[in-house]
């Protein structure tokens, strides 16, 4: 092993043709890129199962307590959810622009796209924070002070939601949106790192793997929200 690596270094020192962006165990840049994105996709597959368990729990309880879930869902502000969906879609656009900028060596566009993506991510979390605050004010946070009295079940006049079942909805709401928000915070950290790398000019058309892989992560988080929005906010909204 030691002999091999020493030999490899020597070859480089002699200035023989070797792409500095290519690691030794890959035959060509395309293979290196494919390996990196494959690894990211395997990680995203585990994330699908991670969120999948929560979606599964949600489905079971939504079937059992549909009326209570519909009543609870109607108390969440749909406008915040819809705005946040649009914010995330915009951020996904700036992420593909960032990847494209890295591929085509446009440093300014890359930096601007990364900054806008992060601003949109912070906007999402800010709106989420306002929404959470309202839940605390309304005592809709599961726990000792939870209260959900006399909330009518949509489509069933004179019937009120069972607070215990509504509390289950809010537990799922906070765990699912909370886990999603945690992913957003991690995503912001990754993008801050990408930004410093881009600022130093580390990315080239030959090597910009972190931008591509960070982008995959951001898009995945967007996809999770694409499902969370209708499932949590829009159960039964018609008048």
């Amino acid at each position, binding site marked *: 092993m030691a002999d091999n690596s020493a030999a490899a270094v020597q070859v480089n020192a002699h200035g023989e043709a070797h792409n500095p962006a290519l690691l030794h165990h890959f035959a060509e840049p395309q293979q290196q890129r494919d390996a990196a994105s494959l690894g990211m996709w395997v990680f995203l597959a585990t994330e699908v199962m991670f969120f*999948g368990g929560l979606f599964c729990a949600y489905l079971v309880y939504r079937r059992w307590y549909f009326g209570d879930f519909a009543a609870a869902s109607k108390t969440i502000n749909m406008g915040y959810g819809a705005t946040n969906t649009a914010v995330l*879609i915009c951020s996904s656009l700036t992420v593909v622009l960032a990847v*494209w900028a890295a591929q085509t060596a446009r440093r300014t566009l890359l930096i601007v796209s990364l900054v806008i993506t992060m601003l949109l991510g912070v906007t999402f979390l800010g709106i989420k924070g306002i929404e959470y605050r309202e839940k605390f004010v309304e005592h809709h946070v599961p726990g000792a002070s939870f209260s959900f009295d006399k909330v009518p079940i949509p489509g069933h006049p004179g019937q009120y939601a069972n607070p215990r079942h509504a509390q289950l909805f809010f537990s799922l709401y906070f765990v699912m949106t909370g886990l999603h928000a945690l992913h957003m915070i991690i995503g912001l950290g990754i993008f801050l790192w990408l930004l410093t790398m881009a600022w130093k000019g580390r990315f080239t058309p030959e090597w910009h793997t972190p931008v591509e892989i960070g982008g995959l992560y951001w898009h995945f988080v967007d996809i999770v929200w694409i499902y969370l929005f209708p499932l949590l906010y829009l159960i039964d909204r018609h008048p």
Partner: protein
Amino acid sequence: MSEHSKSSPLPTYFAVFFALLVGTALTVYAATLDLGKYNAAVALTIASVKATLVALFFMHVKGASEKLTKLVVIAALFFLLLLLGLTMTDYATRLWS
């Protein structure tokens, strides 16, 4: 590097972006209609179309040179559907409860 000198992908990106915004507006509008038991189906269909657009065009699953990537995506979906499908075949068919 030849793979990067193809025609610009930007028109596709912007088309997908607008489709996603239209899908969001559509899903909000559909939620205000009384479609009975089809409300959930409509919402999930729109969400799945949006997710597919993001995966295919933004995450470059379409045009991925490595077939293994597509295999991983399909495997993830398969096991997710297995999880949800088999669970619901149990809970949705408990006629005694």
